[in-house]
């Protein structure tokens, strides 16, 4: 505020007037509103747990802990047990995590270690293009494009992945799976044949869905490794992969691990793709080709048609799922928080 306008405004008393009483009142009301809304987030989590927990109490009284160890689910006889579902949830999630983190961390390394620039400059050299500021920006652009493409994988709704898995993935892998079963049927992983939905298609789609989470968080962790460590390793004569495996990955390990744990939480709670692909069979199995069930899929498939007797039981199952995912998510958030505070301390 300089010049005649400012002085005019000052002399007109427009600026230096202290806030009026109403303004102060509005101010304190707004502040309280903000605090109240913020506190509502915590209240919401408590409410979620209490609401689901309260609705599960009748089932908990009736079935107790045997619900968790029981293996049969029969609404007609009112025998309920969710051991196969718990097993299915953990089994599919862990397998998906294995594939997802293998590919996800690889993509993170590829996107953070300047591979793009190397590849692009090699190609440019082949064509005899001399260095020019325009080409110099190309690798960065491509890296960003690839990163955005991988993030788009997360934007595709899970029900669309389910549809794709149902009509494309299952027919595609079925011959291979049945051949594996015919040849190596003695091996527990291949002990049944794939007749439609099953664990393997579910795992494939699930790992595609959690890959972007792992890639994004791992890439952030790798990029925030101090450059001097990389320089020092190269300066000592380490090859690129000796640097990556010996220096970068160990330094970024906490961030990467936090990302993997969060992705695990995602996989545990993922519903639609599994409800469509896992086959909905109450079976306790290690075979990759057998149909199975997960907690989330059980809820999705049984809730809409559940009778009054079944609702509390399903609430109990939801409570078990809630407990598992809350523990995993809190664990992951804590790890990431410590990883970032450590990185900032450096």
């Amino acid at each position, binding site marked *: 505020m300089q010049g005649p306008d400012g002085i005019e405004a000052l002399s007109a008393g427009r600026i230096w007037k202290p*806030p009026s009483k109403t303004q102060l009142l509005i101010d304190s009301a707004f502040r309280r509103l903000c605090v109240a809304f913020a506190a509502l987030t915590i209240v*919401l989590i408590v409410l979620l747990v209490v609401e689901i927990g309260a609705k599960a109490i009748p089932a908990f009284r009736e079935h107790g802990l045997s619900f968790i160890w029981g293996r049969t689910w029969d609404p007609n006889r009112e025998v309920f047990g969710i051991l196969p579902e718990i097993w299915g949830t953990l089994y599919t999630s862990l397998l998906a995590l294995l594939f997802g983190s293998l590919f996800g961390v690889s993509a993170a390394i590829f996107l953070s270690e300047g591979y793009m620039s190397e590849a692009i400059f090699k190609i440019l050299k082949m064509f005899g293009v001399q260095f020019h500021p325009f080409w110099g920006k190309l690798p960065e652009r491509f890296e960003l494009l690839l990163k955005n493409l991988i993030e788009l994988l997360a934007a595709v709704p*899970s*029900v669309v992945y389910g549809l794709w898995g149902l009509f494309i993935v299952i027919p595609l892998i079925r011959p291979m799976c049945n051949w594996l079963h015919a040849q190596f049927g003695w091996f527990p992983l291949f002990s049944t044949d794939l007749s439609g939905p099953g664990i393997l298609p579910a795992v494939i789609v699930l790992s595609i869905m959690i890959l972007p989470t792992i890639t994004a968080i791992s890439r952030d962790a790798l990029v925030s490794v101090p450059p001097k460590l990389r320089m020092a390793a190269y300066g000592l004569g380490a090859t690129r992969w000796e640097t990556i495996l010996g220096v970068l990955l160990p330094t970024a390990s906490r961030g990467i691990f936090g990302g993997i744990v969060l992705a695990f939480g995602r996989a545990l709670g993922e519903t639609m793709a599994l409800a469509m692909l896992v086959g909905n069979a109450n079976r306790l199995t290690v075979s990759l080709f057998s149909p199975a069930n997960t907690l989330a899929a059980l809820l999705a498939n049984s809730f809409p048609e559940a009778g009054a007797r079944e609702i509390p039981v399903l609430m109990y199952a939801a409570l078990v799922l809630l407990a598992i995912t809350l523990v995993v998510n809190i664990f*992951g958030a804590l790890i990431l928080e410590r990883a970032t505070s450590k990185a900032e301390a450096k």
Partner: protein
Amino acid sequence: MSENQPIPASSQEDKKTLLHKAEDEAARDPFEGVDFSELEHSLYRPRTLFSVILTWIVTGMTLLALVPLFAVLFMLIWRGGQKLSLDLFTKLPPAPLEPGGGFGNAILGTLIMVGLATLITIPLGVLTGVYLAQAPGDSKLASAVRFSAKVLTGFPSILAGVFAYGAIVLATGGYSAIAGGIALSILMLPTIILTSESAIAMVPVKMKEASIGLGATTTQTAWMVLLPTAMPGILTGVMLAVARAAGETAPLLFTALFSNFWLTSGGRFDLMQPTASLAVLIYNFSGMPFKNQVELAWAAALVLVALVLITNLIGQSFSRQQNLQ
């Protein structure tokens, strides 16, 4: 090491002897006893070979990770595109074995429920973001809120549905668009809180201080300086949350259920009854043994993905504008 010591500038002779010494040292080979063939970049060395092979593996895996994205998009256009016509957007879902039909009510239902959820979450989420960005660094409430928002990001969507079922469907006595909207808002909230917080925190401190220095109250600062400056970032967050909510199926399965009809009862617009949505339509129709329904599911998936991706891109363009500024 003589080079590291400061040269005493005493006399010409001293300097000369020093120079000679330096020349002598340069003449001696500093790499004595080093076998250069060991250091050569050659594929016959296991170290180099290991490095090159891993490089190829990583490149291959990154490209392979992108295959599903293109495969999904290609199949959507291939199988969903065949069915695309204006009827899809205006007609109601067909009965089994009936030809034609569309999913106009499902598109409308998705828009209504996502809009409802957005209306609920924007005030809650943005004001929480304002609070978090302004709270002092050691505030216990702020870190607790931030932590719960992070935990909520990974909250399974089906449990939001279970919660809304228990809290709203059972209380109001029926499936409704309202229950669906509330279930979706639980999933949108953390995204909006966290992105608004970081957008507001990125507003330059000097702008905030200038506003307070001019005598503005905290509220005036928030409304006239912080929120307008952080608007692109906040809009990005809102768009990302909307895109996510539009694709969610699980929370709608037993809150909004599904319906083959428009959202009316007795000729009037009514939000308190079962409501169709694109996502649930895809789920329901994909499991049907009728060819027409499966084709409609693919077309609905194409429309849904287009909706989600466009919302995503619009959101990203907001944040790009902010970066350019």
